[in-house]
């Protein structure tokens, strides 16, 4: 996955626009998926926003699934449950499915591990591939994106989050931000 551009993300302004990254993802994914068979699953919350857009542009036939990995995290013992967890919803048969998992920022790989564990509780998929908007490195697990928008480099102690404007003229607009790292209850990349 070294063909994607790398951005030195010292602050939010250095990050590429979400739409540019989405276009890059669509270009990679389109020739590789069968719109009639691909089961797309977004990971809460940023991954769901990305997945909603990819799902629409790619014209996938199966309804979009969403997953909240809160109950499968590996740090529950130390960090506790997150407040306001969402219910996972996979509205298609997982057994035998060709799944495209979608997340916003790929970092340690722990979220992807948790999401895959949860997916297998629904059935045995034929294949799982991963699409991520950004890869910021720092993996703790052997996980790689099949489709990737871009690599970013980021200073330690900071994180990249995807934000969505809730209302106003820019309602629904997605924005990438660089910010100091928050507590584990708010995020787990």
């Amino acid at each position, binding site marked *: 996955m070294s063909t994607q551009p790398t951005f030195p993300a010292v602050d939010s302004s250095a990050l590429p626009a979400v739409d540019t990254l989405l276009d890059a993802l669509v270009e990679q994914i389109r020739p590789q998926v069968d719109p009639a068979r691909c089961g797309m699953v977004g990971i809460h919350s940023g991954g769901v926003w990305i997945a909603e857009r990819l799902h629409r542009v790619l014209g996938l036939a199966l309804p979009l699934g969403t997953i909240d990995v*809160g*109950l499968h995290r590996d740090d*529950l013992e130390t960090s506790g*449950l997150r*407040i*306001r*967890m969402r219910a*996972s919803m996979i509205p298609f048969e997982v*057994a035998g499915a060709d799944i495209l998992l979608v997340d916003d920022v790929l970092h340690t790989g722990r979220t992807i591990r948790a999401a895959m564990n949860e997916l297998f*509780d629904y059935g045995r998929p034929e294949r799982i591939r991963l699409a991520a908007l950004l890869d910021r490195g720092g993996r703790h697990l052997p996980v790689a994106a099949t489709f990737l928008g871009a690599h970013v480099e980021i200073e330690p102690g900071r994180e990249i989050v995807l934000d969505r404007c809730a209302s106003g003229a820019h309602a629904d607009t997605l924005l990438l931000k660089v910010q100091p790292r928050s507590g584990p209850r708010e995020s787990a990349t």
Partner: protein
Amino acid sequence: MTRNPQLDAHGALRHLLSIEGLPRDVLVNILDTARPFVSVTEREVKKVPVLRGKSVFNLFFENSTRTRTTFEIAAKRLSADVINLNINASSASKGESLLDTISNLSAMDADMFVVRHAQSGAPFLIASHVREGISVINAGDGRHQHPTQALLDMYTIRHYKQSFTGLTVAIVGDVLHSRVARSQIHALSILGVPEIRVVGPKTLVPDSFSRMGVRVFNRMEEALKGVDVVSMLRLQNERMDGGLLPSAQEYYKSYGLTAERLALAKPDAIVLHPGPMNRGVEIESSVADGSQSVILPQVTFGIAVRMAVMSILGVG
């Protein structure tokens, strides 16, 4: 004011003993946390690793196969190890004291006790003696409280009515002896239900209940008028023997929830019952099985709510 023994120094839930005195946000957090657990029960593998490696002891000093089973399923779906102890049949009959039993079980590395006891307050006594790190859940104590039943009722009401503000809720039956009713009244008040009605014969619903901030009715027809939720209580047979009621037939005639009486409530009113039901005593069969009955969803939600409570106590 002394600190609520159910909460730790930071206000987080440490034991679940009683609904009384719990802050609203603690109740709302339990209801919110239960939502993802409902989806867990819809999967092929109905299990999440939240309590993996933890041991939950079901201590039932009073028989209740049903409640014990729901706690057992909840704990197993959280990947905990579950040990069921029917204490009547073991230590208590050999003369061991309650606290000695608890000390022994604690030494077996228990993480959580689910306690059902005929004596009001027994779970409080246990909670005040367990070491740091062990949580106690009250699964019904005497006439006092049955907090998880009330929470699953609240989850069910919120599921169908979206919010608690603006609701009128009628609790029907043996309110005097019911730990379910007591817990429901506390939970409904804390969550902001503006009108709570209790209804039944004077022997089972005395006027003194108005001190709990509820409206007391002795006529079913008046109490059901315009309500959003009808919560039925189980009529225990022993009430008939004690002279508090003439007969099951008489009771049904005045307080049974028939289709005709339910028609006095709002058209979209829902009917709750904690089970097990006495058809033809407190509820007509056609109502129990009718479109307004949410009695079976209550059972399903009950597992999710107990999973939520155990998770919050187990991992915070």
